[in-house]
């Protein structure tokens, strides 16, 4: 029995001078896909960052794949994040100085995992990016850059994929395509998927929904 991919309890986060954001206790069994919905200011991005260990909760705990993030030192948390989490941002941020292939290999390199160029090529092929290995990010279309960022998030076979507003800049067709890929690839890696968005189009694709109140 695999532990829950995500489990939070009593989670709050207070920005300086603001009232605290409170998050419902929540658990995501391994392999499930969730949409985290809510209007602006409801703390969707904050929740993603708390799950990623990029922010430390004011109170409460976050467990990812059975590991409590509080128990880790900052360095351990960095490495844990690199190995267990695949993170996709709204702007699909690739390192401009590196080729597509090197952007992918950066993930295992920084997480101190063996680099597998064959896996990188395989991912690129699956995402329809075969032949672009040596391109630089500036020579990619927006859609291609998105898929490269997704491929990079998948490189280290993460337990959980966290996506923050991955579709808000996309038209309907592109949104469908991106969500399809996210769900399919998460399934292929046996990873759980958490998509934070205010975009209601997303809901149809994901089995579960967490609503955040402002």
């Amino acid at each position, binding site marked *: 029995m695999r532990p829950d991919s995500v489990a939070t309890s009593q989670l709050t986060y207070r920005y300086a001078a603001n009232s605290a954001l409170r998050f419902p206790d929540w658990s995501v069994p391994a392999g499930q896909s969730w949409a985290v919905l809510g209007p*602006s*200011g409801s*703390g*969707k*991005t*904050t929740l993603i*960052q708390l799950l*990623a260990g*990029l*922010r430390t909760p004011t109170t409460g705990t976050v467990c990812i794949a059975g590991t409590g993030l509080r128990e880790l030192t*900052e*360095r351990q948390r*960095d*490495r844990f*994040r*690199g*190995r267990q*989490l695949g*993170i996709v*941002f*709204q702007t699909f*941020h690739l*390192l*401009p*100085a*590196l080729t597509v292939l*090197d952007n992918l*290999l*950066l*993930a*295992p*390199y*920084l*997480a*101190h995992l063996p*680099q597998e160029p064959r896996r990188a090529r395989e991912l690129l092929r699956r995402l329809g990016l075969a032949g672009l290995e040596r391109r630089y990010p500036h020579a990619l279309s927006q859609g291609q850059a998105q898929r490269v960022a997704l491929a*990079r998030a998948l490189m*280290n076979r993460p337990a959980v994929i966290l996506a923050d*507003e991955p579709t808000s800049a996309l038209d309907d067709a592109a949104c469908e395509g991106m969500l399809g890929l996210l769900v399919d690839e998460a399934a292929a890696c046996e990873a759980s998927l958490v998509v934070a968005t205010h975009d209601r189009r997303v809901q149809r694709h994901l089995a579960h929904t967490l609503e955040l109140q402002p």
Partner: protein
Amino acid sequence: MSLLRMLRANLRHDALTAGLNMLLLVLGMATITVLLLLGHQIEQRLHRDAQNIDLVVGAPGSPLQLILSSIFHLDIPTGNIPLEDARWVDQHPMVEASIPLALGDSYRGFRIVGTEPSYIGHYGGNLARGALWDDAHGAVLGAEAARRTGMDLGDPFHGVHGITSAQAGAGLVHADHEYRVSGVLEPTGTVLDRLILVSVESVWLVHDIDDHWSRTGAAREADGVDDRYLTALLVRYRTPLAAAMLPRAVDARDALQAASPAYETARLLQLAGIGMGTLQLFGWLFITMAALGFFATLYNALRTRRHDLAIMRTLGASRRRITALLLLEGVFMSGTAAILGLLLGHGITELLGQFIPQARQMHISGALLLPQEALMVAMALLLGLLAALVPAWHAYRTDIATVLQRRGD
């Protein structure tokens, strides 16, 4: 993916800015390297030429000129000294040995030096082929003189009156006295290489016959006045005490002047050192500007790269690793530029040594390493590190969550 690959990729990404900054550092390093190499080799050369000569005795005038003309063969002599006075010096009880020099003529830019075989011995010269002169017509060529004039054993030549190229160009050819190459020396790396050595007597003979101010041997015998002369004597002391006494005794004679090679060489180097120092200052100026450029570049890049660095953190890189990466970028840039600068400096020095006649005479070479160069590389690395320090510190302090947080959420 590897560290080196990443450093190179980042350098290439902003190649123009990085290149310009590196160019400044390369130029600074090259300037200083050339000056170091030239200075070191010239100094070494001067010391080698003046080594084991305690005192030079010649005609009154500038002591520096006397040293330049009779040790380094670079300037014109201060004049001649009567043979009688030269003998007085040679037989002085405080003099261990003296080597006579009779100057005044040249052949195709190479000075003809009337002297004794001990002069060759003094610089450790060995015959590559042939033999020493055994009469007033034999001449031994230094290695460089032989190579450049293309002469070899048995070849005849005539000296020209005057020893600077301007003098010799207009000078009269001593057509009546023919020299023949009797021997060629192996290279010694000293002044000997670019001299043509003959007997003192042959120089007298040449000038007895056709010089207006001198007279023939027959005339000399007729009026009983000996007007034979030498240009200078290279003296070695018998006792350290001589250093205090002999120069004064020499200077007391009207026709003579004593000059200390060690003192004059030091003075010469000091004079040249001021020029070298000024040039070196420019080199350091370049390097300082490069360091400031590095700093500005790295600091500016930090703003545009904050997202890149945050992404690297989300991919598992620790704070320390990001900081180290930025520091290494500074060191990598300055280190690369420093090595390129050293290579350029050595290349330029070698070219100078090959193509500038004066430098070629001095056997200037780019193929030697000085310990100071390691120090320069260390300095450059340190500068790169310092330039990267503030940007790296900022990166260390950056909160990635804030960088990644969009506005309004």
